[in-house]
């Protein structure tokens, strides 16, 4: 029995330590910071001052009365919903297309679409920096100019003429192109795990490709659909790295291109360095994260899927 304890500690200890240090403690610490007036990382001075709900009151006030903060809220809602739809259905379409393709072609396309996910964020943002650049060298501008759709370069993400739609378009487009690959691989591997006999049997019964999709592939992958939906919603609420550089590099407007998560990060680290306020804003994300996460775990029936290790003696 003693031996078991030590070996369990050996295997699990280090990971638990890291999880505790970088998830559990910060979670509580972060909530605590939201009750302090911390600014400019002056830990020594502010961390012991407890100011109750003041940061939350401030946050509430800004949300109510500051038009820029309103923009953040609206942008977050629009961004999450639209990108979610694009990611889930785009991923589904890609998965279907690659499922019905030649193996080789499908592998090539999947590699291509996974590329944005693997690319370093700085490089990925750089691609779109070039693409949406507000001068004539921007790829989009040069295409539009050559097609004579515009007569001088436009700043889609910045020019008030196009706001908020221009900025939204850019952040949705850029994040969507990364996001679809998630649905693609999950759906694709779900389709692949359906016995081929079922597809063939349906063909023998006279089913067309669309019928096979509607009556076999989609009904059998409902679980995966929910899974992708939930997980994409999470990651869209929480994601900020891609958009961070686009804002820093002045590709998109810092107001209409900023989601709640990015607002938290920028408030804490780059703009006002108001960590108390940022922590209060981040608490909302944590609550959403925990609540949605638990609902998802229950809805997806994870607990039942975790089998006992039968052979452990």
């Amino acid at each position, binding site marked *: 029995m003693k031996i078991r304890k030590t070996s369990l500690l050996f295997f699990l200890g280090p990971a638990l330590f890291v999880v505790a240090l970088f998830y559990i403690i910060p979670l509580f610490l972060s909530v605590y910071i939201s009750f302090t007036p911390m600014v400019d990382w002056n830990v020594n001075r502010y961390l012991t001052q407890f100011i109750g709900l003041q940061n939350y009151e401030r946050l509430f006030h800004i949300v109510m009365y500051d038009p820029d903060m309103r923009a953040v809220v609206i942008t977050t809602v629009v961004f999450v919903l639209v990108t979610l739809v694009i990611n889930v259905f785009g991923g589904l379409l890609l998965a279907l297309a690659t499922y019905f393709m030649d193996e080789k072609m499908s592998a090539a396309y999947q590699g291509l679409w996974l590329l944005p996910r693997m690319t370093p964020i700085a490089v990925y943002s750089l691609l779109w920096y070039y693409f949406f650049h507000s001068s004539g060298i921007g790829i989009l501008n040069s295409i539009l100019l050559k097609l004579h759709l515009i007569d001088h370069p436009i700043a889609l993400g910045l020019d008030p003429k196009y706001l908020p739609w221009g900025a939204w378009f850019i952040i949705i487009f850029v994040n969507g192109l990364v996001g679809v690959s998630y649905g693609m691989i999950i759906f694709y591997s779900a389709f692949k795990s359906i016995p081929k006999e*079922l597809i*063939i049997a349906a*063909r*023998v*019964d006279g*089913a067309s490709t669309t*019928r096979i999709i509607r009556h*076999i592939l989609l009904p*059998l992958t409902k679980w995966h659909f929910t899974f992708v939906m939930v997980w994409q919603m999470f990651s869209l609420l929480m994601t900020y790295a891609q958009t961070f550089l686009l804002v820093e590099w002045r590709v998109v407007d810092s107001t209409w291109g900023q989601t709640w998560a990015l607002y938290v990060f920028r408030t804490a680290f780059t703009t006002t360095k108001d960590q108390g306020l940022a922590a209060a804003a981040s608490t909302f994300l944590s609550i959403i994260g925990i609540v949605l996460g638990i609902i998802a775990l229950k809805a997806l029936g994870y607990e039942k899927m975790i089998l006992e290790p039968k052979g452990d003696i």
Partner: protein
Amino acid sequence: MVSIRLDKVTKRFGKVVAVNNVSLEIEDGKLYVLLGPSGGGKTTTLYLIAGIYKPTSGRIYFNEKDVTDLTPAERNVGLVFQNYALYPHMKVYDNIAFPLRLRKEPKSKIDSKVHEVAKFLRIENLLDRYPHQLSGGQQQRVALARALVKEPSVLLLDEPLSNLDALLRVYIRAELKRMQQDLGITSVYVTHDQSEALAIADKIVVINKGIIQQEGTPEQIYENPRNVFVATFIGNPPMNIVKGTVLEDGTIETTGSRLTPPPAVLEKIKRLKLKNILMAFRPENAVVSEHPMEGRFSPMGDLFEVEPLGRDAVVTVTVGEFVIKVVMPTREAMQLRIGSKVHVNIDPSTIKYFDPNTELNLEYIEA
């Protein structure tokens, strides 16, 4: 209704030739069984008929109409897979109704047809269940119902009983046979179980290495195998082979025992100028004893093993390079001593003769 013809059909998968230049005619309304060892090309042949695979070369005809390029749906075949391939997310009713819905038949008609076929296969009480709530035998019937409900011109079955236990297998195969006869539907049935084949087939097609070894009624296949492969594949245990030397006077000799073959055989031996010959006989047509018996062909060998199986025993004797299994009464078999020299006394009238070069039965060689 429909007869099927395969004309020089070949199917390759890369380097593997799964079906090799097969020509076969399947008569209307008959039940044909494709029988052969694993990897022989049975499933491939079946899928070629179904239209799942496209032949690398050769044509396939239904009623003399070329269907080679038609899809399975256009061929109107019913197919039962080895693992049944029931749609797991649909209830039994919807599984059976699926092919009809695809044809956009009216609801009332679908309903009556589903009930009709369900009644026929006695699964009416299961219509409300999901496939995973059914036993193997019930799933098999649902798969059959789904194949039959669209009134296919051809019914194709790929080892449909292999997932069932032995008792159920015997029971259902009888049912299948009765049903096939009632409906008079042209059927192709794949199995590697020869007793199943012998029990239900109108005609058996033995396939090995992608080549048809023999085609014929169960009796023909059993009584008169066309070549050594079929002889040693059919029967339980299958036929035994011994080799003999043809002497000047036309008699055949093995380990000192002599045999005069029937005149027809003798003549073919002479014409083919055979020096050696292979002889096959069924295990039940010989008796093993210490001394050679009168009127029998009695090669000598070493007694290797006696396996008593109740009333009868399987006696294994090695004669030169050949292993021979004889079925004889246990009581007699137990008298024999393992390792001693024994004689295998074969009834000469039951012996089949094969050309050792082509391994063909001499009876099938044109005179």
